[in-house]
């Protein structure tokens, strides 16, 4: 080894290792993060060093470095700026921002692209352009999960929101104090703040004293006096459905866990918030981490999990620090660790950071990632997390918002919680609105208490001056797009887009999904081919590449929309796009197949004119038709074996009698 690993880094590495008592391999991502924070990039030597440290094969570390886009194999600039590329930010001008940042930093992006530098290390990787003096570097990254304040950029570890292209130069010398989250307006009257009660609350701080002063950890005390079955019962009674996207009933999921089995149970908080259009978890992690910790501890007690992880996406470095500090505070106060509050219940929670891979939001992909592998989702059956999850043990994976809801279910009781919202769509939902509305942002409402029209026009202040609604993506970018002017038949009633109540079931009945609650609004200035192209680029970039249809199809769809936008669209392309989408959805290992094909299927179906208008080139002539395979076979005449050839006397005697 040609380098010295400093003592403080070694100490941090040993600490990280201690968080994974079951498998050393799990510490791969934390070690890579620590290394990159210290040395700036992951060198070839680093890969070998980390592999040796964790007793892994070096290829397994190389696999990770090339899979997770946040790891780089060459140095970035002294100040590294990540500009969000994804839909809401693009709508708000992130492409212009990226160019402006590059210009301010003295980076010639056109030349850099021409030189093909972005293919230097990895095929998929986020190309990093570094200024000649090494001072600055620019990276175009996928969704930073702050869509309500688009466009956004991360300057080193600091998030800068609402940053216009003319502020690009300021980004280069951004200070910590400039990068704080802006305060939003007080809650809208139509909101009902439960989970977001403390978010942007006047006088609220994210330390434990503030939380306890406000009555925090009372529900944990209450829960520890209940039986685990009673807690599961309350959660079942509450009708709480998962807030991550699929909307699976939380109590039912917990009910799959058989307590007292031979294997330990694990609980994982899915804080890999990465569905474009969604940015709710960020606020909870930043501003109210103890609410999450309390919810997790109650949940751990209910499913008898003694070890839990919070999987925080890599693009939330500050959130990870905040949550780690909160965990330390909780540990110091006896809420976490051995014999919690004298109950005899032991539970430990650790933060595990992702590194820029959307697929880690898929629960089995997340588990693989937590095991220190590429986040390849597992096949189900047989790998249902409740049976064969983390380290092949029973595992519960819940979204941040869901786990927070648990605290409130214990506070008010399952039956009371079930009265909020609508039957089968209980509780509140945090709707994250981004795109072309006057007041984008988060809004916590009772599920279904509000229609799409009320959300857009009333709560969010309507569309921008002189603009009309064109399309809404109601549940994160993978949800099927809804077109203004469409009507839907729901339970025998015809309703318009504006009349759709924001609940799970009705949005599903309208042919889309409530998903993660990320509502992206587009007005009549937007081109749908451009919008779909942006989404396609996201999914092509984020496909893990494990299974065939998604690996090949996601990139193919992106190539077609790229070509259409470049003026090379052929008459066949709109149909081809739909056909590719049909070939992916329902045929893949995980729901990413649907996530990447639903946008294409719905955009082309609903905005066909726009696609057809840009796809008018003649299809290149096929190869000259010679024979179809059928004709070839028909023309081939093969004599049957038993038919005599020539006269009978020429038939050879069988070999045995010769």
């Amino acid at each position, binding site marked *: 080894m040609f380098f010295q690993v400093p003592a403080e880094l070694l100490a941090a590495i040993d600490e990280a290792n201690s968080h994974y008592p079951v498998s050393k391999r799990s510490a791969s991502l934390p070690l890579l993060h620590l290394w990159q924070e210290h040395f700036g990039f992951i060198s*070839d030597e680093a*890969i*070998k060093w980390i592999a040796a440290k964790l007793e892994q*094969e*070096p*290829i*397994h570390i*190389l*696999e990770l470095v*090339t*899979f997770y*886009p946040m790891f780089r194999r060459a140095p970035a600039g002294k100040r590294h700026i990540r500009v969000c590329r994804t839909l809401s930010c693009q709508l708000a001008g992130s492409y212009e921002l990226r160019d402006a940042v590059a210009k301010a930093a003295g980076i010639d992006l056109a030349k850099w692209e021409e030189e093909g530098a972005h293919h230097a290390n*990895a*095929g*998929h*990787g986020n190309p990093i352009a570094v200024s000649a003096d090494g001072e600055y570097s620019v990276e175009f990254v996928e969704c930073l999960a702050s869509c309500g304040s688009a466009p956004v950029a991360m300057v080193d570890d600091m998030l800068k929101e609402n940053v216009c292209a003319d502020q690009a130069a300021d980004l280069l010398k951004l200070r910590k104090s400039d990068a704080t989250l802006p305060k939003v307006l007080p809650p809208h009257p139509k909101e009902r703040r439960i989970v977001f009660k403390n978010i942007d609350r006047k006088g609220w701080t994210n330390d434990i004293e503030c939380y306890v002063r406000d009555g925090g950890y009372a529900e944990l005390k209450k829960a520890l006096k209940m039986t685990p079955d009673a807690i599961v019962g309350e959660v079942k009674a509450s009708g709480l459905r998962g807030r991550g996207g699929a909307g699976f009933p939380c109590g039912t999921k917990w009910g799959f866990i058989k307590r007292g089995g031979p294997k330990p149970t694990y609980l994982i908080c899915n804080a890999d918030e990465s569905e474009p259009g969604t940015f709710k978890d960020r606020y909870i992690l930043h501003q109210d981490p103890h609410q999450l910790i309390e919810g997790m501890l109650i949940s751990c007690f209910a499913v008898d999990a003694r070890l839990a992880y919070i999987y925080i996406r890599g693009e939330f470095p500050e959130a990870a620090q905040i949550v780690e500090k909160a965990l330390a505070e909780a540990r110091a106060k006896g809420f976490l660790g051995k014999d919690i509050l004298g109950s005899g219940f032991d539970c430990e929670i650790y933060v595990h950071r992702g590194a820029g*891979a959307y697929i880690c939001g898929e629960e089995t992909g997340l588990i693989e990632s937590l095991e220190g592998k*590429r986040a*390849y989702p597992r*096949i189900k*059956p*047989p790998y249902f997390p409740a049976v064969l999850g983390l380290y092949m043990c029973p595992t519960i994976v819940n979204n941040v918002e869901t786990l927070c809801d648990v605290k409130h279910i214990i506070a008010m009781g399952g039956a009371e919680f079930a009265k909020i919202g609508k039957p089968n769509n209980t509780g509140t939902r945090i709707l994250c609105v981004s795109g072309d509305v006057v007041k984008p942002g988060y809004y916590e409402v009772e599920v279904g208490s509000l229609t799409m029209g009320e959300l857009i026009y009333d709560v969010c202040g309507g569309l921008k001056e002189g603009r009309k609604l064109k399309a809404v993506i109601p549940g994160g970018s993978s949800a099927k797009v809804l077109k203004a002017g469409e009507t839907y038949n729901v339970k025998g009633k015809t309703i318009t887009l504006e009349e759709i109540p924001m609940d799970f079931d009705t949005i599903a009945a309208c042919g889309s999904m409530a998903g993660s609650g990320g509502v992206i609004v587009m007005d009549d200035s937007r081109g749908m081919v451009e919008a779909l192209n942006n989404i396609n680029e996201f999914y*092509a*970039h*984020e*496909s*893990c*590449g*494990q*299974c*065939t*249809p998604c*690996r*090949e*199809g*996601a*990139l*193919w769809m992106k*190539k*077609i929309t790229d*070509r259409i936008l470049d003026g090379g669209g*052929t008459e*066949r392309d709109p149909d*081809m796009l739909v*056909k590719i989408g*049909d*070939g992916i959805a*329902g*045929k*893949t*290992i995980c729901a990413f197949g649907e996530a990447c094909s639903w946008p294409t299927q719905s955009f082309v179906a609903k905005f066909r004119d726009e696609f057809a208008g840009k796809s008018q080139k003649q299809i*290149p002539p*096929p*190869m000259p038709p010679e024979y*179809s*395979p059928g004709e070839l076979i028909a023309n081939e005449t093969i004599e049957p074996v038993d038919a005599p050839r020539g006269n009978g006397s020429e038939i050879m005697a069988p070999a045995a009698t010769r």
Partner: protein
Amino acid sequence: MSTATEVPMLNVQIDGAWMQFPKGTRAIEACRQATKFIPHYCYHPKLSSPGNCRMCLIEMGLPKMTPDRKPVVGTDGKPEISWIPRPQISCALEITEGMAIRTSSPMVEECRKGVMEFLLINHPLDCPICDQAGECKLQEFSVEYGNAQSAFLDQKVKKPKNVELGPRVTLDAERCILCTRCIRFMSEVAKDDCIGIVDRGSYNTIACHPDKPLVSNYSLNTVDICPVGALTSTDFRFKMRVWFLKETKTIDVNCGTGSNIIIGARENVIYRITPRDNDAVNGCWLPDSHRLNFKYVNDERRLKQPMVKGEPVEWRTAIAIAAEMLKAHASDTIALIASARSTNEELWLTRRLIEELEIDKQHDVIPRAGEADGLLVAADRNPNTTGAHLLNICTTRSGARLKKIADGVRSGQIKALVCLGEDATKAGLTEDDLRKLDALVVMDILPNKTTAHATVLLPASAWCEKRGSMINVKGRLQRLNKAVNAPGQSRDDWEILRDLVQAVSGSNGLHMIEDVFKQMAGKVKEFDGLSLSKIGDLGVQIIEEEAAK
């Protein structure tokens, strides 16, 4: 005796017909047993199922249930099926009672067409120069299940080509369909987890870390199981189109495992050796060291001409002189070194020669001990020590008498030595010792220090040039088959030995190798009731595994 508990049988409907399969059977295997082949790439019966290629999608149904969870029975007395609208992979799907499968419905065919199209859009379609052509699953399934035309108009993804993954395996990443069979084989079977995937999405590429290439002695198995032309054997690459290869089923002779193999040869030249499935012996694997060890067969120094004292002679002259020389010696002055690489038939005739010459305890084989690798390479590097022992050529400890023979030669007590397929200098004798002998009868295929001093030299056949049988270290009797012809005047070993026995004893009666086996089976109880043809392609267990050790 089987002590396994009874496995319950489950009723499964496959394409409309109800059948029974043991619990635990995977759907893809149940369909195969029902002669409904389901195309697949990533699935391999000996490896875990990642379910990533999506080629084996089928339509699945389960019995319709009444509200009180009882199956609804139709008018035909069979359960009614409720079909799941979403296709399921059959490779990781365990059958359950009442499961129904459609292996070819419009939905299934649509799925397969889709997957084939996806697999081919970024594939280079360089079949004319691809070694896999002719045994490529992409080609085969394209014909069976694919589309005639491609709708792909855009740039293909570029990936590394002609990558040396290891000393014996070459990767073309553009042809790779990322089924991960090679990764799983190295991890699960070879226990050398050295292959992984780098990059992401459509750019995913199979790779080894530069410091840890694919050096395993099992690396070429990844080539065998690669369903496409991504991994090719560096040795076989561009040597021969596979459809020209004449395939011969035989067994490997590089160690006592007796792995089952296929020799691919054309016009008397061997081009490659690949494993042949036999779950009782080698599964479907073969060590690289064994499969590549065939080049010596084509060596131009092969012995092709019978010689007496360095002069070429006719066969009958060579045999007659050898017999005369041996008969002229008293039995206690003759020693015989045979080979545990010989077939049972050859060893049986050797036994007869020993008996006719009345050689007593001055005969043995040369042991070849190595280290077992825990997989397929046995510690015994002779393929037929069990046979040599069974036929009394050696004691249970092969090579135990070699020192006595060497001492005898050195002291002048032994004056005639017969070496059958072995170099006596590997048995403790020096060339000076050999020079002292009155008679040295040597049968071999390549020149060595012993052949240089032979009074009578009898050119024989290599293992792939002859038929016969051997018994592996676990007591399994298996068959060698002839893939190519022996060069020049060299003859099949058993014929040489037969002629020698006849010349010594004057007896007669063996015309075909089957006769040798028959004679042997009449005298040695382990072979009782068997014949060469009854051994079959997969062999017969004739000695209990423990006893064979």
